[in-house]
């Protein structure tokens, strides 16, 4: 295990405190990792009402399994793996109807309307700002249309700057598979965005 992936002394200290019964240390762990967990939950679970229960479930599982954490990865990576597996179980159990993709039309509509409003108010902004905003809208839409695993990998790699090794630890997929999914996801995104942008430009 290399140093960038391995545990750090702060993680060990926090885990030791939690194991001694200090719940404040667990609150710190939650604060430190909840954004990462949110990224995974939002990408994998399209039902907004279930995310709250799932998030709690993830941290309760983390708490109960903490004694078994062997520090072979970063604590955040380990918690992300619990989040990924919990979401996977949720998908298996609920079997949400996914129209070949994974997005909330309503949420997207609101988001899109809000963005459109911002966009229409930006008539005095420079051309590049308008282009950037427009691209952000298209990108969000296209990312949401990707399969859940692609969304998750793309977000963790490009947004959370995680390495292939960390993604392997989180998903349990071989590194080659992770790389190939990321390659396909980027290619798909690039092509979809280009075709969409060209259509809108016409």
């Amino acid at each position, binding site marked *: 295990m290399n140093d960038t992936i391995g545990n750090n002394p702060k993680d060990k200290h926090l885990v030791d405190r939690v194991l001694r019964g200090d*719940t404040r240390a667990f609150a710190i762990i939650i604060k430190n990792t909840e*954004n990462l967990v949110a990224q995974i939950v939002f990408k994998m679970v399209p039902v907004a009402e279930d995310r*709250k229960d799932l998030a709690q479930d993830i941290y309760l599982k983390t708490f109960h399994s903490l004694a078994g954490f062997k520090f072979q990865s970063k604590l955040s990576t380990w918690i992300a793996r619990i989040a990924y597996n919990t979401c*996977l179980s949720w998908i*298996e159990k609920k079997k949400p109807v996914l129209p070949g993709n994974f997005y909330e039309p309503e949420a997207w509509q609101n988001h899109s309307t809000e963005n459109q409003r911002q966009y229409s108010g930006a008539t005095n902004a420079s051309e590049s700002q308008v282009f950037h905003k427009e691209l952000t809208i298209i990108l969000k839409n296209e*990312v949401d249309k990707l399969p859940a695993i692609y969304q998750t990998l793309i977000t963790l790699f490009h*947004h959370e700057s995680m390495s292939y090794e960390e993604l392997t630890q989180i998903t349990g997929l071989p590194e080659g598979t992770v790389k190939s999914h990321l390659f396909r996801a980027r290619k798909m995104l690039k092509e979809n965005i280009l075709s969409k942008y060209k259509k809108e430009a016409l």
Partner: protein
Amino acid sequence: MTNSHPKEKEIQEYVLDRASCPADLIRHIESCAACQEEVNGYHLLFSELKQEPASRFDFDLTALVIPQLPSPKTGMSTDRFIFGFLVVFACLCIGVPVYVFWQNILYMFSDIPVYFIYAIIGSSAVILVIKILGLFKKYQGQMRILNFNYSA
């Protein structure tokens, strides 16, 4: 310098980690307008992905989780005691007969017909195969659920 255009995968690798690309590939990409266009497209895509607003929970997760945590336990927990007891019990169940009947154990299997041993090995193999198939089926199910077969 290579004349043929690099594959899409190589373009992505160039954008992600130029330093690890072969010199030929770098020279081609940097002198080819079509490849530069591809590279710019990916640069733009990656920078937009980096800036995409992050998803955040709209509730106080800490306030929800902390009250649900069990209070700290003192001394040995019941689970650990039961686990320890079962381990000792299992060791005794195996260890005592082995110790008492050690001399006879070696002769235990000598009178068993060969076909019976084959039957045991065969049925174990069948169970193993069934288990592996079950795991594989479960894996395939998960892959389907995650839309791995998605095609744009």
